[in-house]
């Protein structure tokens, strides 16, 4: 599915690329594709419609820059708009420094509330807080046992009562927290449908009783078009403060997050991506936008390259990268640019599809100076055909550049890795 969408988008780019500028015609083709991408990603029908309108308006108003293809420009507008809608920054929990902070967790059945409560308690405990978990789901079979077991595993106490009264459990849990010196109360509530009036009333009452600093709405990332209805109903009733998007370790696009955000305007605070207690992440809008789009942060790359490179040179470089003809000569030329643009690894980090070990391990930014020296000690032929670099050539280069033969070997290997990666990336359509 992920690949499907990526391919679809590549098709758009191909269609628009090379037509020189954004016209109503090429936009309308692309817009249709964008609409499909959003709908396939479970973005709500109406939200998609509004989104498309704003992208079209922005696109039409933009001037096409010489070195960006219209497709790239449109991708950038699309991407930026997605990020803006998803919320431009991470919003953290409101945790009181003194007194008791109450966090209440609500949502539909099976969305992942109880699991999330355990994860959050674990995280906050790691930050030095003293959490108390509260088992307020009195309906689901073994819901309390589930929370107790999760609490046990992370050594966080769980407050429970034999009585089946969620309001009372919530009220007494706060008193318990005060008495036992817990500064954070996390209330796990039962899953409920937004159309269930009696159960919705229950969480409204609990909110009234415990006055939580944070109410978090937990939503399954696979939710479809109905996400807007349930989220809106929960929001109307308890005015929640943030969203938790769960099961993100699957391959759902998570477009429902975009729908929910645009309907209730509340930030996404956490991403849950696994069943284990540590599978919890803070939310980065650009990552979700990339996921919906089906691409890595290729736009930021384009943007960065754009701002620093001479336009024609950038085009030439891109062409070479695509044809896998990028050699040491080009590398040397780009080192200056790279220095200006920031670290090589930060540039790598922006390119989609690069394996983490390549991103992290192989590029030593501080070695740029050494690299430059090594390349300068190569003959023109060696720079253009790194394959001919045999042992004796390598030791000559090492001597000439005042480095060691290991340094030269490492560079040649890194360069080879990079070329393989580039060709893989361009084959996959990562670059355009």
């Amino acid at each position, binding site marked *: *599915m992920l690949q499907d969408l990526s391919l679809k988008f590549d098709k758009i780019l191909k269609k628009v690329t090379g037509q020189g500028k954004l016209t109503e015609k090429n936009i309308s083709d692309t817009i249709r594709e964008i609409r*499909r991408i959003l*709908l*396939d*990603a*479970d973005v*709500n*029908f109406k939200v998609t419609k509004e989104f498309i309108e704003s992208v079209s308006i922005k696109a039409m108003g933009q001037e096409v820059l010489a070195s960006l293809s219209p497709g790239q420009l449109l991708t950038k507008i699309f991407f930026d708009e997605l990020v803006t809608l998803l919320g431009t920054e991470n919003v953290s929990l409101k945790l009181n420094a003194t007194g008791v902070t109450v966090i209440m967790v609500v949502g*539909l*059945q*099976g*969305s*992942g509330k109880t699991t999330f409560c355990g994860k959050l308690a674990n995280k906050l405990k790691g930050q030095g807080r003293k959490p108390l978990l509260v088992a307020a789901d009195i*309906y*689901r*079979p*073994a*819901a309390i*046992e*589930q929370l*107790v*077991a*999760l609490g046990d*595993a992370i050594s966080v106490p769980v407050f429970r009562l034999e009585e089946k009264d969620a309001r009372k459990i919530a009220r007494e849990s706060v008193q318990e927290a005060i008495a036992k010196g817990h500064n954070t109360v996390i209330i796990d509530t039962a899953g409920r*449908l*937004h*159309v269930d009036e009696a159960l919705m009333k229950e969480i409204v009452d609990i909110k009234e009783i415990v006055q939580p600093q944070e109410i978090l709405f937990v939503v*399954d990332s*696979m*939710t*479809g*078009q*109905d*996400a807007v*209805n*349930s989220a809106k109903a929960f929001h109307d009733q308890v005015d929640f403060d943030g969203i938790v998007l769960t*099961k993100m*370790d*699957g*391959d*759902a*696009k998570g*477009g*429902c997050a975009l729908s929910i955000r645009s309907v209730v305007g509340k930030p996404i605070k956490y991403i849950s991506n696994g*069943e284990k207690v540590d599978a919890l992440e803070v939310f980065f809008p650009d990552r979700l936008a990339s996921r919906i789009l089906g691409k890595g942060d290729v736009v930021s790359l384009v943007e960065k390259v754009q701002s620093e490179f001479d336009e024609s040179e950038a085009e030439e470089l891109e062409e070479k990268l695509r044809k896998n003809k990028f050699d040491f000569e080009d590398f040397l030329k780009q080192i200056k640019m790279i220095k200006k643009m920031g670290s090589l690894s930060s540039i790598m980090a922006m390119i989609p599809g690069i394996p983490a070990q390549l991103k992290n391990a192989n590029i030593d930014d501080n070695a740029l100076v050494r690299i430059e020296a090594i390349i300068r000690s190569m003959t023109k032929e060696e720079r253009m055909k790194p394959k001919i670099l045999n042992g004796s050539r390598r030791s000559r280069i090492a001597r000439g550049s005042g480095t060691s033969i290991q340094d030269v070997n490492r560079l040649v290997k890194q360069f080879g890795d990079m070329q393989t990666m580039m060709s893989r990336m361009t084959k996959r359509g990562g670059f355009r």
Partner: protein
Amino acid sequence: MKLFKNVNFDKLKESLSKTRDKIVNRITETISGKVKIDSEILDEIEEILLTSDIGFDTSYQIIEDVKKRLTGEKDRGEAAIMNIVKDVIYDLLISGGSRDEYQPAIETKKPFVILVIGINGVGKTTTIGKLAHNFKSSGLKVIIGAGDTFRVAANEQLEVWAQRAGVEIVKKDKGSDPSSVAYETVQTAVKGNYDVVIIDTAGRLHTKHNLMEELKKINRVIQKVVPNAPHETFLVLDGATGQNAVAQAQEFSSSVPITGLVITKLDGTAKGGAVIQICAKQKQPVRFIGVGEDIQDLQTFSPREFVNALFD
């Protein structure tokens, strides 16, 4: 023997009334006064289909089918268009093998083995409780296997359901091999002359290779005891799930053969339209729907009633 006597079509209609409101009322609204411009009506229908999670492709396919069937039609009024949309969707459901008179063929096999699979939190365990209750109240001897040895309190949860349904349960410690639980359950059933065996499994994302392999193993182990079992493998889908349901059905059925779908949580406002997509694309039948958290909230899926409830 008639199983699932508790099927209550009023409740089905009630639970689908939101679906109906959405589809019918809007079609009615659009159609009244605009009867002649059927391309506009079709656009509106497309919107309704898409907001029901029927998905881009299948919605397109339905619209194209409706258009085609309309060409020969002199009467392009409201009723005619609605009937055609109904027929097209009904045919898609039927093409997947759904049918009104479905009952698990319990009489043909003893023990009759049912495996229940699906991603996390969709309602597998609850559905098993409801199924067990139905079989039990039909006078059958039922045993369930607690094959979710992974999630905390999964055993305890299924035990509550076993108690409620009044059926036997086989369970092992958390962390045990799920296929050994399945093995033991089926073996106990054979020895104890049980009619029906239902095996619960841990929720697993269809993207996790090792967990899908684990499922294959469970399947194989069951076959060691009862050849050709499981006789039914139900994939449970959450009715609120969007386009990912299609990938779920695809991936699960490529690891073990699925014989039917169960759509849960249709008591909310979600349309469950992804079902139509799976029926159309993957030729899967829908067998049951979940319409609540109580033990009686399971109904046999009836494509005719489903479509009728949509368009009453």
